[in-house]
């Protein structure tokens, strides 16, 4: 007797066993890392808050860009593989061709496409989506100077002999 769960589980295993694509692994990683990595980054108290925000944003964006890029390139792979299979008379081996082409495109997407999109999009998106930290403008005023109390010599100027005590007078020993 098979339960609906067993039936579904078997279908899933059969499909993965017959036609496993590099795309599935890449999509799984993109989704899970896109959600969990920013969460853990925001929990890392060893980094400053702004730094955490930037890193988490870039990680989340990478996950989203990766997911979209993999799907788009995979659609291209389908067409390209079909074209090559038709031209080279290998239509029967189309699924095999798709899986190898899928690996090539997933790797190239991870190497060039995703980092390039992230470099171009991180700063503008961060500026648009995250509220800017408002810095209080300090008015341009001279720094307050501490008033130093002057000794009152009651009409007399600063006694000269105190100022030059060590530099004047008779020297003993002739040195």
């Amino acid at each position: 007797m098979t339960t609906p769960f067993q039936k579904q589980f078997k279908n899933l295993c059969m499909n993965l066993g017959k036609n496993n694509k590099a795309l599935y692994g890449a999509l799984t990683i993109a989704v899970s890392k896109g959600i969990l990595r920013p969460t853990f980054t925001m929990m890392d108290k060893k980094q400053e808050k702004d730094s955490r925000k930037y890193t988490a944003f870039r990680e989340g964006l990478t996950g989203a860009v990766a997911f979209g890029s993999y799907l788009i390139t995979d659609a291209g792979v389908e067409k390209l593989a079909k074209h090559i299979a038709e031209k080279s008379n290998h239509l029967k081996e189309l699924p095999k061709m798709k899986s190898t082409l899928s690996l090539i495109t997933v790797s190239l997407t991870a190497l060039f496409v995703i980092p390039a999109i992230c470099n171009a999009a991180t700063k503008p998106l961060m500026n648009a989506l995250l509220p800017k930290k408002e810095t209080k403008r300090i008015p341009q005023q001279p720094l307050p100077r501490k008033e130093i109390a002057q000794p009152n010599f009651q009409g007399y100027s600063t006694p000269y002999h105190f100022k030059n005590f060590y530099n004047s007078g008779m020297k003993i020993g002739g040195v």
Partner: protein
Amino acid sequence: MIDKVANVLLNPKFVNFANNTTYTVTTESLFKATGRPVAIMMDNNVDEKTRKYAATKEGLYQLLCLGIYLTMIPFIFQKYGFKLAQKILKGDKDLPAFKNAAEYLNYAKLAKMEKKDRQGHKLLSKISDTLKISKEDKLTLKEHLLKDDKPPAFPAAKGAIELSNLTGTVIGLAWIASELSNHILHPLMRGLRFEEKKKSNTINIKG
């Protein structure tokens, strides 16, 4: 030209490589470990010191991911995932009672070979002598390998391994790697003098 491309794409070793989740994730991780740090270094919106820090951290993170993936997937997820799938599909002809995932993988390697190449192959000794698809089957799986041109392939067994790999990918790479990286990468970055003790790092985005 197009025939040459088709021959490369249909090379049996390449097809086998592309159909294996472990190999594809490893390839992707290696590309990420090189491509992402290079891209970060090229990001002119961030100052050079921060770029160096972020690129080194990203490269180390991807290598950590690869290490976790290569050690945890075959020894934990594949092993126990296959056992769990056997329990769920107990008695199903599409997933016979292989001793473990390794025994199935050896069987699958032999089943893909030409019949003449299977005779006397060293992997044959790793297949159980008594294992059958079901009680009704007259031949054991070993006899199928020796007598059939195309022995049964058991895609459900392969799928169970791939599903375990995918589950391991989520748990290992997204969860455990992220958690571990917080504990491992900071001391490593300190060792490489990118971080100072008790001093947080700031990322300075150019205005």
